[in-house]
């Protein structure tokens, strides 16, 4: 089985689905001829032609709006928003239209589309190339939100998202496109090549939406994480010598409540970890779910470890980033209380 990084795995998912299903079309800013600024769609236009893989004007509202029209017609558009920070001009089309067309038409119409977007920080992208806006979409009835943490899942989840008959937000943590970044930013970068989850089948397979994975089994504390933060959790647990169970949520809507409950009831302690800002972040939802369902199993308050409630900084990136320096003390606190 070939080793793929996230970019290659995502490209392969596109390739597999375009080959299998002629209704899959791919477009977005710089996506066609150039193959995307992160190269995810490289080679697709050459292979499948300009009719199915094409560049879009710089108008995210227009991209989202026309994709909805294509989905209504019967295509399965997969479109890229170049950075998640730029999704907001398309927000109205996603929130007021795509998410509700099935509902408002009593299922007469459906909108099977996938919105892919590189997201998250750790790349010195400043406040316009680093944000994690997943909570806005988790708050939205009618869309699913997926955030993969490794190449194997990225491909399988993207294929499942393309086959899904509802709109799916697919956020790709760009810091782990090329390697599993664990938050120890001063250490050399590790590539995906030797990672077991970089072994990606070349053909078709799916990873189901709405199912979490246990990234590390442990007994003392549960860490709920997704995307880049899964690797931060794994490395920090190792560094702190903590027997943590790391749950990689993979999909945040619908979230895998059974996996969360099973783990927290086993460990009795829970740390919620995400890169996005703290207030009303998805961690607040997770903490509330754990409190509602596992209260009598909890031996300590649920701890949130998140980005700060500031815009994403440039020079102070590592002060903002919820890396091992923030997670480590939080784990100790969860274990001591």
């Amino acid at each position, binding site marked *: 089985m070939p080793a793929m990084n996230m970019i290659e795995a995502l490209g392969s998912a596109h390739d597999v689905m375009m080959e299998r299903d002629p209704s899959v079309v791919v477009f977005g800013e710089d996506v066609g001829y150039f193959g995307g600024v992160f190269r995810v769609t490289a080679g697709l236009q050459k292979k499948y032609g300009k009719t199915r893989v094409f560049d879009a004007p710089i*108008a995210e*509202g227009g991209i989202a709006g026309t994709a909805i029209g294509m989905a*209504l017609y019967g295509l399965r558009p997969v479109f890229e928003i170049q950075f998640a920070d730029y999704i907001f001009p398309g927000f109205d089309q996603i929130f007021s239209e795509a998410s509700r067309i099935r*509902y408002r038409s009593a299922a007469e119409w459906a909108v099977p589309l996938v919105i892919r977007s590189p997201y998250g920080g750790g790349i010195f992208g400043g406040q316009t190339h680093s944000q994690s806006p997943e909570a806005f979409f988790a708050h939205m009835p009618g869309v699913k939100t997926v955030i993969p943490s490794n190449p194997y899942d990225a491909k399988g989840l993207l294929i499942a998202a393309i086959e899904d008959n509802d709109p799916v937000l697919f956020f790709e943590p760009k810091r782990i496109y090329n390697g599993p970044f664990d938050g120890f930013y001063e250490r050399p970068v590790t590539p995906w090549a030797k990672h077991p989850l970089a072994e990606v089948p070349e053909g078709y397979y799916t990873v189901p939406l709405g199912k979490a994975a246990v990234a590390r089994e442990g007994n003392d504390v549960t860490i709920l994480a997704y995307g880049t933060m899964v690797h931060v959790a794994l490395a920090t647990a190792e560094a702190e010598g903590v027997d943590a169970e790391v749950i990689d949520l993979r999909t945040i809507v619908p979230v895998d409540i059974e996996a969360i409950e099973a783990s927290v009831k086993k460990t009795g302690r829970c740390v919620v970890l995400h890169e996005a800002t703290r207030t009303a972040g998805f961690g607040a939802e997770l903490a509330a779910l754990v409190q509602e369902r596992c209260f009598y199993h909890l031996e300590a308050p649920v701890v949130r470890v998140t980005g700060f409630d500031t815009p994403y900084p440039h020079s102070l990136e590592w002060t903002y980033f919820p890396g091992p320096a923030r997670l480590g003390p939080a784990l100790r606190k969860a274990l001591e209380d």
Partner: protein
Amino acid sequence: MMCQVYSNKGDKLKGRQLPIMYSDRARGFFSISGNLGTQYPQAVGWAMASAIKGDSRIAAGWIGDGATAEGDFHNACTFAAVYRAPVILNIVNNQWAISTFSGIAGEELTTFAARAIGYGIPGLRVDGNDALAVYAATSWAADRARSNLGPTIIELFTYRVEGHSTSDDPSAYRPQGAGAKWPLGDPIQRLKGHLVALGEWDEERDRQLLDQLGEEVRTAQKESEKLGTLGNGHYDDVSSLFEDVFEELPWHLREQRDQALAEAEAKR
């Protein structure tokens, strides 16, 4: 359609939409949103999809004079022009957006049809109260779309005689009786006059047709009212509230449905 207006037990949209926000897929009529302008780029996308598939179907979208100020209008025009989408983009310029006259959408300086020029799209400005002119312009645009010549923008110049809605009082912001003074007339009366002058139609047949159509609507209304109205016998299947959010019901909506059913049970 009448059941949809009443949100009653016969409403195929399950009581989810305001009156007249119909959906009729079988007739190629898309679900009306209620947001302004959002459906314009969707019409373009639908048309693009037809072209991508190599089909011959074309799309038509309508927007009001006021909503041409929305970004979605400009997105739709850009995409329609760039991809030469087989779409007819109609602008119904009835000169009033609730209380706001079309000048606030930029009409004092130019026409809405003239905006087409900036996008490289042919733009027509038609007397929207002249049914034959509207038909001719639309046919021309449809032929262009079907011949792969791309989009057309048609400004339909007309006048909103009545209020924006039944809760709107136009006398608060424009002279009383202004509607009656509109010089380009009522489009149906004008068409009738034209047909009568040609000898294709007469007053007697006109009266008969009006009676017949009035009876049809009244019958539909009465039939529909047997299935309830919003105030008295609306669509009331509690579990339907949770259907169609997604194709399949996820766990959190299952739980919320059970809660709603329990609340409904407790009320009984």
